[in-house]
């Protein structure tokens, strides 16, 4: 099993996300993380899916995704073929603030992005392993809440969805 990033370029069509996720559901494959947003190209959405599967499964999944009528193109990459990041937010009670926490914040280069009467919110961006490490450290500080995004990714190999669309016959 390998960890893969699938990049899917789609039309902005209601239900497209469901059409893609049921491909995984039907095969009993868990999606580790998923993010969807607009892409660089007007009207084209980009869905980033992180999944841990076998090489045969990833081939099969990506072909099934490309078969969806409103999918323009789908690609898959190994971790070393993409640059990726995940953002994490940590909610910590004011009462837990002490010098040792300051050390952690400095060490991780995390940011306090909100301060309320009862709590502060820390923001830290990195790979899952990094945000997870910070999470483990913060747990003893009575961490109130934690939230981590799916990965956003840029592929290292060159490909162009625009070119693909231009070549349409």
């Amino acid at each position, binding site marked *: 099993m390998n960890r893969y990033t699938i990049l899917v370029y789609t039309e902005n069509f*209601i239900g497209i996300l469901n059409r893609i996720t*049921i491909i995984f559901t039907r095969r009993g494959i868990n999606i580790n993380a998923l993010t969807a947003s607009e892409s660089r190209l007007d009207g084209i959405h980009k869905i980033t899916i992180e999944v841990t599967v076998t090489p045969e499964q990833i081939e099969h999944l990506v*072909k099934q995704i490309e078969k969806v009528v409103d999918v323009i193109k789908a690609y898959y990459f190994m971790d070393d073929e993409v640059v990726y990041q995940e953002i994490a937010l940590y909610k910590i009670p004011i009462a837990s603030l002490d010098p040792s926490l300051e050390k952690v914040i400095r060490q991780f280069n995390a940011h306090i992005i909100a301060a309320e009467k009862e709590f502060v919110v820390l923001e830290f961006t990195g790979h899952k392993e990094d945000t997870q490490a910070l999470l483990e450290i913060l747990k003893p500080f009575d961490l109130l809440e934690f939230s981590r995004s799916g990965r956003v990714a840029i592929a290292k190999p060159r490909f162009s969805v625009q070119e693909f669309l231009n070549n349409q016959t």
Partner: protein
Amino acid sequence: MVRGADIVVKSLIAENSEYIFGYPGGAIMPVYDALYDYSDKIKHVLTRHEQGAIHAAQGYARVSGKVGVVLATSGPGATNLITGLADAQIDSTPLVCITGQVAAHLLGSDAFQETDVVGLSMPGTKWNIQVRRVEDIAPAIAKAFHIAKTGRPGPVLVDITKNAQIEFGEFNYVPCLNVRSYRPYQPINQDAVTAAAALIDTAERPYVLYGQGVVLAHAENELKAFLDKTGIPAACTLLGSGALPESHPNYVGKLGMHGNYAPNLLTNKCDVLIAVGMRFDDRVTGDLQRYAKQAKVIHLELDPSEIDKNVKCTVPILGDCKKSLSLLTEAVSQKSHETWLERFRELEGQEKEAVVSNDLHGTHGGLHMGEVIHLVNKFKEEDAILVTDVGQHQMIAWRYFDFKTTRTQVTSGGLGTMGFALPAALGAQLNDYKKQVICVVGDGGIQMTIQELGTIMQTKAPVKVVLLNNNYLGMVRQWQQLFFDKRYSFTELDNPDFIKIAEAYSFKARKVTEREDLEAAVAEMLVQEGPYFLEVVVEKEDNVFPMIATGCSVEEVRLS
């Protein structure tokens, strides 16, 4: 300005749809109201259940090659289509289904007969859409037709809210010719053709497997030309039957669980396997770990997701097989494979002796299903269409029916939908009243959609129904006998008087229990002008052989 409902009907007419198979209800009533004014331009067939409507549309689409059109209301009307959608999806049948939906402002409110049809039908459609505004109706229908019929065909669903049907808009139909995210046809890679030709030219025991892809691509002549030139033996899948006349010298039989002996057995003896428009279904391959491992595989296939899905191939040739077959025929050398073909013929002899003669020429005991099909062959017209349901009768009819021309078989292959045959036969018959449509069905399956006898009565479609009655869910019983210690758990049926039912629906009907009456009855049925219902009481505990049991290899095909 016209109503949205008129736009629906005008769009269907613009797509040259001949028939709508449907059933009215609240959320689709504006379209039904509009239909009232267009009965001279498009015919509506009122089935007795929405499942009947969609299976009829499938039958129509399969024999005509055109898009089958279905109309149903929201909620239960739409959910009753689901089986047919799944069936059409797995068997690549082009359909456009239009469902009514509650008014847009009621969506998500659990309104009367509201259900999430787009969500429910998503896994069973090639594409679907909900239309909430009148101006979106015609473009959605145009796109639906384009997607349904191009590339690998499939079912498409357009869900139209009631407000969009009632609102007024302009009608200006622009057929859809291109969807930018959708590439139905892949360009053929000439290098792959060259590589495949080299493999074929040096092969000692090449073997062609063809499926419904040949029919869908209208590539029957190209297949024949390829086989004529190369002399390669060819076997068909269930849905590929008819793509090549069975009298063709290279035709060696049928593949799969209940196919012929030689075609299955010798799959593991060929050195180059050429798969054309087929998808290596598990019913064809048996245990994949022991399937054609010795062979180099060439796969001619339209759908990229089928390549390497079940069987890893050496040379994939993506694209329309009508084109790829002709390119391949040009690239290969003229050859013959008489010795190799002879091996098929020898094994065919063994199958004849062990299975076929008894199946077709019973002398004592109960009637065999095969005897009925054998007599049907004797009296049927050359281009008669066989429509079957699912189970023992389906396999027997497929095995013994004499397929002479293309698009002469309609059956539920991938999904195995009991209840498919009767409505599908109606649809097949409506495409051409003059063609002989023979609907072979079991006593289990017919009772799943028996109400469609009413639609046959109303349309006066001259369907010939052949009910092979063994008072069992025969195929399940066969499995119980072979694999579950003869524990016949809930497979025996107390059946009604089918003749009375058929007569109540104005069919001319006849029941045969004795061997000596069978021939005259079949003959009578096939000269009858109108619909005819022939019930044949057959042996209760007959089995279908050859058989490849689940989990077994094609090599383990058994004759008894």
